[in-house]
């Protein structure tokens, strides 16, 4: 009886150690596919500038910034291939991808977009600028950290 309990505990701790090492390996693999920080900053600034041009300056020039965004996407893919990887666009399991994109696209991004637009339209320019900066910070963190690490980090935990 005691021996069987010890065996169970040993199997459990062995399985736990295996899961943790697999989680770490997946994090290491994904870490090496990560874009350099300057590229994530450039992406954030380009999208932030697009929003500023459109919402504050009412300029049609914002569409020109789709060119650097396309370049960044192309560069990221090529960089990974040269490094010996082909990565998933969304490394999360399907249900997390759905929740993540639902939250981002349907709730958070539109809230920021219409919030900034509203603040500019009622003349609260500085509040609009502040919300735009908050949007850029949020965007940076969601590009850099969330898609890759949030689920992997929990994989070996139980």
């Amino acid at each position: 009886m005691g021996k069987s309990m010890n065996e169970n505990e040993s199997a459990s701790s062995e399985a736990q150690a295996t899961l943790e090492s697999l989680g770490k390996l997946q994090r290491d693999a994904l870490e090496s596919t990560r874009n350099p920080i300057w590229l994530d900053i450039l992406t954030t600034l380009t999208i932030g500038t697009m929003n500023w041009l459109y919402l504050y300056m009412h300029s049609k020039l914002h569409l020109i910034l789709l060119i650097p965004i396309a370049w960044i996407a192309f560069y990221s893919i090529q960089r990974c291939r040269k490094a010996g990887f082909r990565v998933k666009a969304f490394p999360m399991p399907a249900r997390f991808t759905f929740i993540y994109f639902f939250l981002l696209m349907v709730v958070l991004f539109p809230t920021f977009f219409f919030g900034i637009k509203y603040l500019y339209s009622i003349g609260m320019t500085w509040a609009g600028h502040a919300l735009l900066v908050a949007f850029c910070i949020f965007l940076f963190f969601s590009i850099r950290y969330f898609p890759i690490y949030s689920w992997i980090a929990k994989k070996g935990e139980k």
Partner: protein
Amino acid sequence: MSASQFDALIHAPNRLQICAVLEALVEIEFKKLRELLDVSDSVLSKHIKALEEADYVEVIKRTAGGRQHTWVALTSSGRKAFQGHVKELKKIVG
């Protein structure tokens, strides 16, 4: 959704690690996989061959810059087997 099932073929630590890396990515070059796992060419080749025979991984040869590069990807049956195995490990952890 894969069922929780222990898979003897991928239970070997190196094979489990190969599947884990391939599950996180779409494809990886043989050289890069070797670096990540810190194993020799021959050990990695042996394990990949075993996984390929079980139809768990796919080996793709590509030519770039006049040189042939070997890429490895997980097949859908390999992904199911790995996910089932991980579920089984989680069940053991409780």
